[in-house]
Each structure stands twice: as structure tokens, then as C-alpha cells.
């Protein structure tokens, strides 16, 4: 994965034939009769950092969850790292190994220590020797700046620390793509920054990221492109600069007017 300029708007340089990390083509999804995703088209290139925003219920999280098969979609196609997802459990499993996900509610495993949270999947999914998995886990815990918490249980940590463990846990699988589903929405205000800082560092290292977030400061700092969704549709895709300063769509203007005040 090529490292790229921090504020670069372009995707990874030297775009080859398949430089797409994720291709979403004409995806439609219904929850029963409720139409949640309407004809979504979006391509995320390797090294790109996409920030998705939009009002609640606009389908942002659902789109994210479709990319790693946590939700099924009824029409269209999603290709992740060259693997067409479909409804094939084998390919979904293959994709999940390569895609890390960080949840709003952290979803750490409360009965396992921080270290065990981080080594469980590498040992059991990647079949890594435990000693090596532990070494890698400690390295990532150090990187998210909580190496000293390795032997505690998640319940003993603050929200911000838990979310950083969740990031480390996902990184331990050495994913090609990281997805964040409103990673700071459940945090106390004092904890938001420590999580965002971790994510900025990750972005600087060239990680491909799709982030559902309303942290506009973060978006300005790291986003390659902004995606604005409303009522199940992609309404506007733009560079952060254009998105914040010259939004094109009326709905985008209205939304930004609401959240930026």
C-alpha cells in the first residue's frame, strides 16, 4: 500500500487496472418493504480516505455493513479487493478477513482481556502462532498508546481507551481496508480527540479508510473525498474543500448549515 501525501486529494498514484479497494455498483437494499439503499454507486481507490456523512437514517451505516457482509443487499454488486461479495458465505468470510471494522458501541469482548481481544482473530482466523499474534497485538496496542492496559478487561477502561483497543483489534488482522461506523458518537466529549488522533495517524500511514462520522474537523484534515447521503441515496461526492466551502446540492447546503451552525 503506497503511502501518499497527507492532504492529497488524489487517490494513490500510479493507478493500475485494479486500484479499486471497494467498488459498489448499483446497489439496492430493502429492510422488508423499507427501501434503505437506492442505487448506490461508489468506488473507493486504494489509499483513499472516504468520509461519509448525512442525517440519521440516511443509510450510511447500512452501506458500510453491506461492504463486509453484515447486511445482505438485494440488487447490484459490491467488489472488495477484487472479490465480488454476493451472498456466498465463503467469499464473505474472505472479505471479512481483509476488512477491519470499528463500531460505534466498540463491541469489545468483555470476557476477554484487551490482549486476548486483539489476538483471538489472528490466532483462530489467520492461524497465526500465539506468540507471534501477541507480539503483533502488543505492537498495535503501543501504537494506539495503551500498551499498559493489555492485561485489563475492557470494562476497566474508559470509552476512549476501549475504542482505541477496538481499532488495535481490527489492525491486528492487517486489514487492507478499515471501516469506522460513527467511532466517536458514543464517547464522552473528553475522549473524542484521543480516538480521532489515532485515526489521523492511521490515515497518514496510508490506510484505506471509509469513515461514517460527523466530526467535520477530522473530515477536513484527512478525507480524500466526502460522501453525503440522504434518504438512502448518495447525494453528493466531492473533495473536502469543495464540499465544505462550495456544496453543490441544496440538501448538502441545508445539512452543512445545520451541523456547522
Amino acid at each position, binding site marked *: 500500500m503506497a503511502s501518499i501525501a497527507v492532504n492529497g486529494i488524489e487517490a494513490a498514484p500510479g493507478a493500475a487496472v485494479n486500484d479499486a479497494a471497494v467498488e459498489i455498483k448499483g446497489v439496492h437494499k430493502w429492510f422488508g418493504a423499507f427501501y434503505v439503499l437506492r442505487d448506490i454507486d461508489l468506488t473507493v481507490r486504494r489509499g483513499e480516505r472516504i468520509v461519509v456523512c448525512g442525517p440519521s437514517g440516511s443509510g450510511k451505516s447500512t452501506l458500510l455493513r453491506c461492504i463486509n457482509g453484515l447486511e445482505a443487499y438485494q440488487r447490484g454488486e459490491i467488489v472488495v479487493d477484487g472479490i465480488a461479495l454476493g451472498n456466498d458465505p465463503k467469499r464473505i468470510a474472505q472479505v471479512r478477513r481483509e476488512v477491519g471494522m470499528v463500531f460505534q458501541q466498540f*463491541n469489545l469482548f468483555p470476557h476477554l482481556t484487551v490482549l486476548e481481544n486483539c489476538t483471538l482473530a489472528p490466532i483462530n482466523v489467520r492461524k497465526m502462532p500465539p506468540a507471534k499474534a501477541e507480539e503483533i497485538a502488543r505492537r498495535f496496542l503501543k501504537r494506539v498508546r495503551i500498551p499498559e492496559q493489555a492485561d485489563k478487561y475492557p470494562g476497566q477502561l474508559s470509552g476512549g481507551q476501549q475504542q482505541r483497543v477496538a481499532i488495535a483489534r481490527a489492525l491486528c488482522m492487517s486489514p487492507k481496508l478499515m471501516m469506522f461506523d460513527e467511532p466517536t458518537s458514543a464517547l464522552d466529549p473528553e475522549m473524542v480527540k484521543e480516538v480521532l488522533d489515532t485515526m489521523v495517524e492511521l490515515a497518514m500511514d496510508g490506510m484505506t479508510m471509509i469513515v461514517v462520522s460527523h466530526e467535520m474537523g477530522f473530515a477536513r484534515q484527512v478525507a480524500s473525498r466526502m460522501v453525503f447521503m440522504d434518504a438512502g441515496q448518495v447525494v453528493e461526492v466531492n473533495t473536502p474543500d469543495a464540499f465544505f466551502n462550495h456544496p453543490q446540492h441544496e440538501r448538502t447546503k441545508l445539512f452543512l448549515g445545520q451541523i456547522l451552525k
Partner: protein
Amino acid sequence: MTTPGASGAVAVSDAVFVRRTPAPDLAPPFASTGWIGWVRANLFATPFNAVLTVFTVLLLAWIVPPTVRFLVIDAVWTGTDREACLASAQHPHLGACWAFVTEYRSYFTYGSYPIDQRWRVDVFFALLAFGIAWVLWIDAPRRGLGALYFFAVLPVVSFFLLYGLPPLGLEIVDTARWGGALVTVVVASVGIAVSLPLGILLALGRRSSMPAVKFLSVIFIEFVRGVPLITVLFMASVMLPLFLPPAWSPDKLIRALVGVALFSSAYMAEVVRGGLQAIPKGQWEAAAALGLGYWQALRFIVLPQALRISIPNIVNSYVALFKDTTLVFFVGIFDFLKTIEVARVDPVWATPVTSTTGYAFAAVVYFICCYSMSRYASGIERRLAVSERR
């Protein structure tokens, strides 16, 4: 706020407050700590609470002394027949006739198992105790091996040990001759060892998204739960032989074992289902997002948490199952309680206190077993509660 100095703060005005020195550490009031505090908080907190305390003390004063007198102080510990336990000049007050229990202790333990073969039962008890200790002791070495021993090796070895294996010189002992604590232990162990795994599978089946699996699990669970255990046992012992050719018809004890195991599995399934439902969906999702498959997520993430939540109910089911084993005596199996039933009418020991003593003995034995289970479970709960602090 308006008294500067006293609170360590300087009031600039009524609306502005800035603390200059931290609030000092004060000791708690005397009456809220120590034993006086405990008594006040727990025994005499409210008038109703105080009445309950007094009432409980009176109740204990009324019940405990006569019980202790009967079971211990006036009890007869040695003797060879009823004469020892009858009231006499040296022994004016009737007490428990423990001499009767001592006399019958072998029968209570082995039933009619041939006397010269009883060492086999002793070996079985030793192997079982070893297995239980290995599995229950959390810090024991090689617990995986312990589980293999307990769930795979022990049942096979025990079967041949108790039933017999002529090539090895162990003569066949028909299960009709098994009895006493041996039968109770066998029925309870099989029920306990089978009902948890089977109950987990049924609970998963009931929550499955596959309609056929779900349907079969629901039918089984609801049917078994809708029928009393005694009916299941009668069906197993009376109706099954009507449908099967005699050569196929399994042994009476085995039929009862299957009945008890299936019955308790249905209850266990509902207990485990409650635990499974308490696990947030996010746990499954986080496991899936990391690439863990269904069975891996179940084994590493969901079951450990679900079972921990269920421990009180699982143990409750086990205690109920242990006591329900006494019902096998209705289908003619000589369990521990049935051997007491038989012994207490022995004319050699006919005294006014023989039955009482027999039942008191049964009560003590069942209480020790059930209470140990619940104590062990609460120990485990405390130990596993480390991660509960969230």
C-alpha cells in the same frame, strides 16, 4: 458560598465561585461503620425490619434446639437392633437412631450389588470423584484432557466397570441389582453431563434461522416441558417395550437414564436460550467482522458469556435434576431414597424413630449435595465476574 474562608473558597460575588483549596477528607460518622453500623443498617433499619429480625430470632429459638436435641444430643450412635433405640431408663428421650443408618450404610450405598463385587463401585466412585475434581477445579493442569476424561473416557470405563466385561474377568451385574447412592449418582451424573451439551444444541436450534431445525427443536422442547417427568419415565419404562421387539428393548435403567437426560435437556435448552438472548447482537457482529465463523463466534465469544450469565439457572436446573432422580423409584429402580424406604420397614429396626431417622439422613445427604453445587456455582460466578465491571 457567601462565607469566605469557612469553605476554603473565596466568594467573589453571589454568582461566581472559585474553589481555592480542595474539600478536606472527613471520616465517616461513627454509627455508620463497624458492627454497630452493620446491625443498624441490616437488622433494625426500619420498624418492619426490626419486627422481622425479632420474629426470625424467635423462630430459630423454637426450631433449632429440639432439632439439635433429636439429631445429636438424644441420638443413639451404636447398637445392633431396635432395642438400642427404644426409650429406656438410661435413655429416657427418644432421639435419632443413627445405629440403624450405620447398619444399613452398605445397602444405602450399593443396593443389592453383589457384596464380593462392591469394590468395582468403589473404584467407580473414586474415578468419578477424580474426574469431577479435575473438571471443576478451574486452575487444574490440562483441563482439556480432564474434559476428555470426564465426557469420553469415564462413561465408557464406568459402564464396563459397573455392568461387567467377562473377558477381563468382570462378571456381569444386572442393573436390576444396582441400587442406593450408586444409582442416584449414575442417574444424576448422566443427566448433568448430557443435559448441558444437548440443551445448548437445542437452544441454538430454537434460535436457528433454518426452519426445519427450529421447528424440530421447538417441538421437542415444548413437548417435553409440557409433560411431567414421572410421565416421561413411565413412558420410557412401560410404553417403549410395547413398540420395540424384546431383543431391542434396552435395559430398564438405561431407559430411565435416557428419559431423565432428555427431560432435563429441554429445561436446559430454555435456560441457555435465556443466556444467548442476553448477548448483544454487537458481539456476534464484532466476531463476524473479524472473520470468525458461526461456530468460532459461538465458542469463543457468545457461549462463554451466555453460559456465565446462565450459571445460577443452570445450577438451579442441576439441583432440581438431582432431586428429581428420586422419581426413578416409581418405575422400580432402587435409588438412594428407595433403599431408605425399604430399610425403614425392616422389623429388626422397628422403632418409632426409624422412619424419621431414615428421612433425616436422606435430607442431610441431599442437602449436602445440592448445597455444595450452589456454593461451587456462586464461587465460579464471583470469579468470572472480573469482566463484569464495565
